[in-house]
């Protein structure tokens, strides 16, 4: 019953978010500011995690393929498929749900408890649309770029650490990541990224917007935003994989 109530409230909030903006020029400016904050602000963490995860996947793959029957370039193939299909779109999105989601929920939650949202409403501004729409557009636009960078850095990390530790040769690794490459895998990853970006921003905004009380409740909203957006991402990961790959 509670879930149905939340779904209803989420739908009603999204209906307000996607209503006609008061002044599109202001929304555009706000969207660019959000791209900088949500996208460029996450570049560092995405880069570090991608390089090291790529490295770990390569070493683990090499460790598992010690059999002489398996060619060494399988390490490259495994790293590529792991990074492209799952690590970059899903795991990085889960990390962004933690970083960006908690940021959004606490920002909107603080605005709610300090009556800044009421101030917007009194001015005759659709606060839901003004605060949330630019965040959704920014994330849906910038996250695919982040994920492409993550893919590149993941594969680069695998290459650097694989070669440095001697578990794979440069030639075998590069041959492996090119072997039987299907561009649809990138399309699948980016399609997932766009859906996950929408989930992260909308679910986090929903929890921030519903905050009532004070600092304690802002913290609770922030936690809920991360937990629920992560769960929804995992559910949609399964649904999209079933729809696009099965």
């Amino acid at each position: 019953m509670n879930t149905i109530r939340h779904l209803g409230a989420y739908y009603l909030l999204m209906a307000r978010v996607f209503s006609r903006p008061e002044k599109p020029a202001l929304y555009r400016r706000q969207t660019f500011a959000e791209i900088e904050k949500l996208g460029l602000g996450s570049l560092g963490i995405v880069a570090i995690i991608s390089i090291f995860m790529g490295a770990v996947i390569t070493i683990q793959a090499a460790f598992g393929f010690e059999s002489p029957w398996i060619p060494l370039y399988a390490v490259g193939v495994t790293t590529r498929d792991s990074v492209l299909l799952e690590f970059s779109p899903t795991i990085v999105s889960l990390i962004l749900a933690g970083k960006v989601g908690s940021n959004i929920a606490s920002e909107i939650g603080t605005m709610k408890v300090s009556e800044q949202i009421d101030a917007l409403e009194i001015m005759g501004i659709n606060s839901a649309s003004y605060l949330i729409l630019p965040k959704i557009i920014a994330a849906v636009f910038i996250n695919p770029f982040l994920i492409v960078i993550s893919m590149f850095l993941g594969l680069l990390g695998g290459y650097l650490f694989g070669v440095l530790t001697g578990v794979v040769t440069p030639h075998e690794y590069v041959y492996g990541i090119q072997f039987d490459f299907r561009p649809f895998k990138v399309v699948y990853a980016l399609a997932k990224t766009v859906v996950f970006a929408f989930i992260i921003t909308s679910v986090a905004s929903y929890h921030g917007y519903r905050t009532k009380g004070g600092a304690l409740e802002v913290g609770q909203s922030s936690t809920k935003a991360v937990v629920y957006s992560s769960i929804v991402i995992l559910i949609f990961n399964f649904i999209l994989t079933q729809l696009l790959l099965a």
Partner: protein
Amino acid sequence: MIELRNISKSFGDKEVIKNFSFVCEKGKTNLIIGASGSGKTVTMKCMVGLFEPNSGQVLYDGENFTGMSLKDRKKIRREMGMLFQGGALFDSMTVEQNVIFPLSMFTEMSDEEKRERANFCLTRVNLENVNHLYPSEISGGMKKRVAIARAISLQPKYLFCDEPNSGLDPKTSIVIDELIREITYEYQITTLVITHDMGSVMEIGDRVAFFHDGQKAWEGDKNQILETDNQLVVDFVYASEFMKEVRRIKRSATK
């Protein structure tokens, strides 16, 4: 003019406002006073549409606000200015950007015109050289003044002030009260102030409604409030030892 007709509001089983009627006159500072938790802020939120009353009407210059669509309400809301208890300034914007914000949203002014208007409003509330500071860098009294500047930037017809003196020292409270009164008279605004500060009542109370347990227990002006025999008002006004002493001196002087 704003008219409240038989407003009632409940949260679950708890009836917070019971059949409340009051008229806020144009060009006057109208006050709703009462103890904390008596339902004053809920009343104001019903007036501006942040809460929906269970019954009754709120009329803005004769137009029924409670029965309006969201679209029509927006038109009236754009004629409202509101000073919230904590100021409710936007943290991510500077003082100047806060005042400019409503102008950017609802006017076609050029950047230069908006800056001029913002500077005029900030000067009007006696604030200078703070334009580029953030709300976290200014004092509580300054925040209230910035909030007033933002509220008057679009030249509102109606001004709402929720506990404008909360958290301020007596001297700064008088500054804010005087500012509210001056602006009300100067621009002929219909102003409603929610407060439990007797200093404000005596300073700016052109019309006063005393709220007790969700109901209007008394109505009058700032002079009448000191003379009334209404026991609820007497208990509220003369709650402090200082006021009790004032009353004792006043009575002995009358005799």
